[in-house]
């Protein structure tokens, strides 16, 4: 095996790939070959590092130098200076927005973005080459499967997972050990395990990053789940819109087969297990477990009532364990390091860590992994770097379209499954969208409802009709035609839909509305009584006006398509609000810049 003195890790996650990391990787290879360094320095493409905002990202080991926003012309410099002469190229290093005193960080472990994080799920992401099984094995990969097969009974495995307190990361937070126990005890000659990699929550991409950065962890965990529950076959239901993840998972499965880590008689113990990939059908609701089962069976992806639960009657009517990608990803470590180790992170009722996808109005957008129980303030300010452009924090939406918002008052709330639910939001899959004072909360609720209306499968009336009516009311309010009565109607409708929809999609769809009503009711009221949008975002509630200071040049009146502007030459002009269509064409024409939307 060759020995390399330095490794250049180039992020091949989706974020960095779209900012051109593949070209950067090629250029490193060419430049190193030109300098005759290709036998000494290895270029490795890895999964997501999490700091997508700074992509394309490269890390040079052993120093751990963290280069961000790497451009084509930077590659030669890094090769010439750093790799040939050993001089770190300081001006290309990541600049830490949070540590004003030490403006440049040379080592990845010192970057504030990573300091408060605890990487358990993402431990291999950005560290190993996901397309090489040897690298996974080097970091103790498949040791847990070996341990389980040779030293533990299925009951031992279930008990260890139960003891760890691991709760499902796909949204519901159901105890994983209990789920496995149900499946283990279910009678049946054939059983299945499935991995839910459909990740439809807009803005969430932790599952994608794990599959892109550490696909073997999922295969290993599924094999462990299969052993514990008596299954011999697994399905990964993966979003078809994740081409890199699909490809890497395919490579990983092929390599595992080649090494005999999938297939028959694994570790000479007589245990057989195989994994098959199923591409998602493209609808959000296909991530709901009963719809996912239908989709794997080749049916249309529609939910069915529970019970029976999948652990009793799942794929093809057989007992099935369905877990989320992130849930699976920690299983091998729980087996190797023990339940107590896992419990050393997080809180009593929500042990472990959780990955969040930070997005919206925040400086460091990207993936962060924190111990459960970390406060929102730490996530948003210490790790996320606060709100850009001097704006003020207003709210944060957790749980995507099924979740709700939290406000300034909740900044010191420790984040775990139960605190979020108590506040009318939920963990969901871990999307975290930050909103500042320029965002209208009514419009925000409308945005999410628009999504759920689109994604409702139409099977049950409360969701199909109820969400649509709710959206209509919201549109009425944002366009300035709403009344106080509409707000009450919206609220009672939201409660009915929540209580009567068939599946999780409909049951949680009203959450964004209910939570904004709970915390930002005054904004709703301003829309209907004052016909004003306090954040200045709802177009229909804005009016275009000419402030004092007009010189009467008539430039505006000449461009107005509807002739709404009148006034004598060299005198103040006015806009007739009944005629104005708010196109804004006049605004850039004013030499004095006194025409504004307000």
């Amino acid at each position: 095996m060759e020995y390399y003195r330095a490794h250049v890790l180039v992020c091949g996650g989706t974020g960095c790939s779209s900012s051109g990391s593949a070209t950067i990787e090629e250029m490193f290879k060419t430049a190193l070959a030109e300098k005759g360094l290709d036998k000494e320095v290895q270029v490795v493409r890895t999964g997501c590092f999490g700091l997508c905002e700074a992509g394309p990202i490269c890390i040079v080991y052993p120093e751990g130098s963290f280069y961000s926003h790497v451009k084509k012309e930077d590659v030669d410099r890094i090769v010439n200076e750093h790799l040939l002469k050993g001089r770190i190229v300081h001006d290309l290093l990541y600049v830490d927005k949070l540590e004003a005193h030490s403006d440049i960080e040379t080592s990845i472990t010192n970057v504030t973005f990573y300091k408060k994080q605890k990487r358990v799920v993402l431990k291999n992401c950005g560290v190993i080459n996901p397309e090489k099984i040897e690298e996974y094995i080097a970091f103790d990969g498949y040791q847990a499967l070996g341990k389980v097969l040779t030293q533990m009974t299925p009951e031992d495995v279930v008990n260890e997972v139960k003891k760890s307190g691991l709760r499902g990361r796909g949204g519901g937070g159901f105890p994983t050990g209990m789920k496995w126990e149900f499946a283990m005890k279910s009678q049946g000659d054939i059983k299945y395990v499935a991995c839910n990699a459909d990740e439809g929550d807009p803005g969430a991409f932790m599952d994608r990053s794990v599959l892109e950065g550490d696909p073997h962890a999922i295969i290993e965990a599924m094999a462990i789940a299969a052993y514990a529950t008596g299954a011999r076959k697994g399905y990964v239901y993966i979003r078809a819109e994740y081409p890199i993840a699909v490809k890497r998972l395919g490579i990983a499965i092929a390599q595992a087969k080649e090494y005999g880590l999938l297939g028959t008689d694994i570790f000479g113990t007589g245990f057989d297990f195989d994994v098959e990939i199923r591409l998602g059908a493209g609808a959000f609701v296909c991530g709901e477990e009963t719809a996912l089962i239908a989709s794997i069976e080749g049916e249309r992806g529609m939910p069915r009532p529970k019970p029976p639960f999948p652990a009793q009657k799942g794929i093809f009517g057989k007992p099935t364990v369905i877990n989320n990608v992130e849930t699976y990803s920690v299983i091998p470590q729980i087996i190797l390091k023990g339940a107590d180790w896992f419990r050393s992170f997080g809180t009593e009722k929500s042990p472990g860590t959780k990955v969040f996808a930070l997005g919206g109005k925040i400086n460091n957008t990207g993936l962060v992994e924190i111990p459960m129980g970390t406060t929102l303030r730490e996530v948003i300010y210490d790790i996320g770097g606060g709100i850009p452009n001097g704006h003020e924090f207003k709210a944060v939406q957790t749980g995507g379209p099924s979740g709700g918002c939290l406000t300034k008052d909740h900044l010191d709330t420790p984040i775990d499954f139960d605190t979020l639910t108590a506040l009318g939001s939920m963990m969901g899959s871990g999307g975290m969208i930050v909103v500042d004072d320029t965002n209208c909360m009514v419009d925000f609720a409308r945005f999410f409802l628009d999504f759920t209306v689109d994604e409702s499968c139409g099977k049950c009336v409360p969701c199909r009709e109820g969400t649509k009516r709710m959206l209509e009311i919201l549109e009425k309010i944002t366009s300035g035609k709403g009344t106080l009565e509409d707000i009450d109607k919206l609220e009672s409708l939201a409660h009915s839909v929540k209580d009567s929809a068939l599946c999780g999609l409909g049951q949680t769809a009203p959450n964004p509305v209910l939570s904004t009503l709970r915390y930002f009711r005054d904004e709703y009221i301003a829309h209907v009584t004052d016909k004003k949008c306090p954040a200045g975002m709802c177009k229909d509630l804005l009016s275009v006006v000419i402030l004092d200071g007009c010189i009467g040049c008539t430039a505006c009146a000449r461009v107005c398509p509807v002739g709404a502007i009148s006034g004598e030459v060299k005198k103040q002009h006015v806009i007739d609000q009944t005629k104005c269509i708010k196109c804004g064409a006049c605004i850039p024409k004013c030499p004095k810049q006194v025409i504004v939307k307000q």
Partner: protein
Amino acid sequence: MKSLEELTKLRDAAIQKVDLRKERKGTRIVVGMATCGIAAGARAVMAALIDEVQKRGLKDVEITQTGCIGVCRLEPLIEVYKEGEDKVTYVDLTDEKARRIVAEHIVNGSIVKEYTIGAYE
């Protein structure tokens, strides 16, 4: 994969490739590779170190490079950091000297005094 031992063997072989990325423990050899070092023959020293470490299958050894340390006249020069010990600086090296350092200092733990900066001066 027929047994757990087989996997463990595979891991031990694979670890060499990724060792640099794990948390830093063990020994670290830093080779001065600025223009002065390269001109004096640091590349050959580096190659010899890599070759020797690889041949012996040493796991906790990291070979890396650095810029000019400031005593260009003593190049090629390396510094050895062993866990829990003071740094040792070797100067005026050659291919053979580098191999001897790996054998005596890195593997057996006895410093090759005659090559150190103190002996040279």
